[in-house]
């Protein structure tokens, strides 16, 4: 299963079945597909993703690529992890996501989880993912590096309230 090299998509009854290296075959309804207006930096070949909850009680979500079976990020809702986090989303970016002024965007943070040391988990506050839930368009929106860290430690006792 891990040796799968290509994504195979087969469509039937409106559902798309996608092969993934981590989760095997996934059935996806087209309305659930999230489209990147520009791909994640470093992964130019992946534009379509789905969100797969890690578990009912888990704050983690998987952002699984439909274009690359091996590509998946662990993400969490910024509002859950850091309620006071307010990334800057400019008007052109909102336009790119086709967001009307009254539409709030979902902000996801990508987590980096060291294999041997999950407690060393960090969140990327420099490159949050903004998603317009109405259009399901998304973009990684780079922030000011003097304000935000790409490796913000999730587990510390010193989080500012």
């Amino acid at each position: 299963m891990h040796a799968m090299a290509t994504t195979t998509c087969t469509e039937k009854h409106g559902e798309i079945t996608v092969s993934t290296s981590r989760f095997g075959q996934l059935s996806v309804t087209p309305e659930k597909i999230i489209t990147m207006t520009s791909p994640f930096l470093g992964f130019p070949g992946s534009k379509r993703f789905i969100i797969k909850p890690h578990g009912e009680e888990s704050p983690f979500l998987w952002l699984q690529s439909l274009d690359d079976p091996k590509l998946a990020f662990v993400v969490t809702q910024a509002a859950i992890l850091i309620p006071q986090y307010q990334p800057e989303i400019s008007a052109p970016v909102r336009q790119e996501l086709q967001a009307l002024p009254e539409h709030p965007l979902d902000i996801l943070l990508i987590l980096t989880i060291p294999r041997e040391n999950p407690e060393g988990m960090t969140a990327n506050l420099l490159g949050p993912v903004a998603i317009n839930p109405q259009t399901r368009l998304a973009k990684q929106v780079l922030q000011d590096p003097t304000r935000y860290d790409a490796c913000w430690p999730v587990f510390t006792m010193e989080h500012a309230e």
Partner: protein
Amino acid sequence: MLILARKPGEAIAIGDGIKIRVLEIKGGQVKIGVEAPAEVMVHREEIYLRIVEENTRAAEAPADLSSLASVFSTDKTRIKPQQSGK
């Protein structure tokens, strides 16, 4: 690499939609103005590379996150379980 000499005020056109203009040279620093279509991302290289690096590291997550359960039970963080899926 194509190398072009430019004076302040002069520009380079890349394709139809991108212009890179030297605005000012002062104290060992060059101020550059970039005009590009909205869909073309323009970033300082070091920030671009930082994000590429972090995205690449993040993409190596294993499918099994069960090891995280123990991390959360230690109550060292303010992370709370989500009420329901999106």
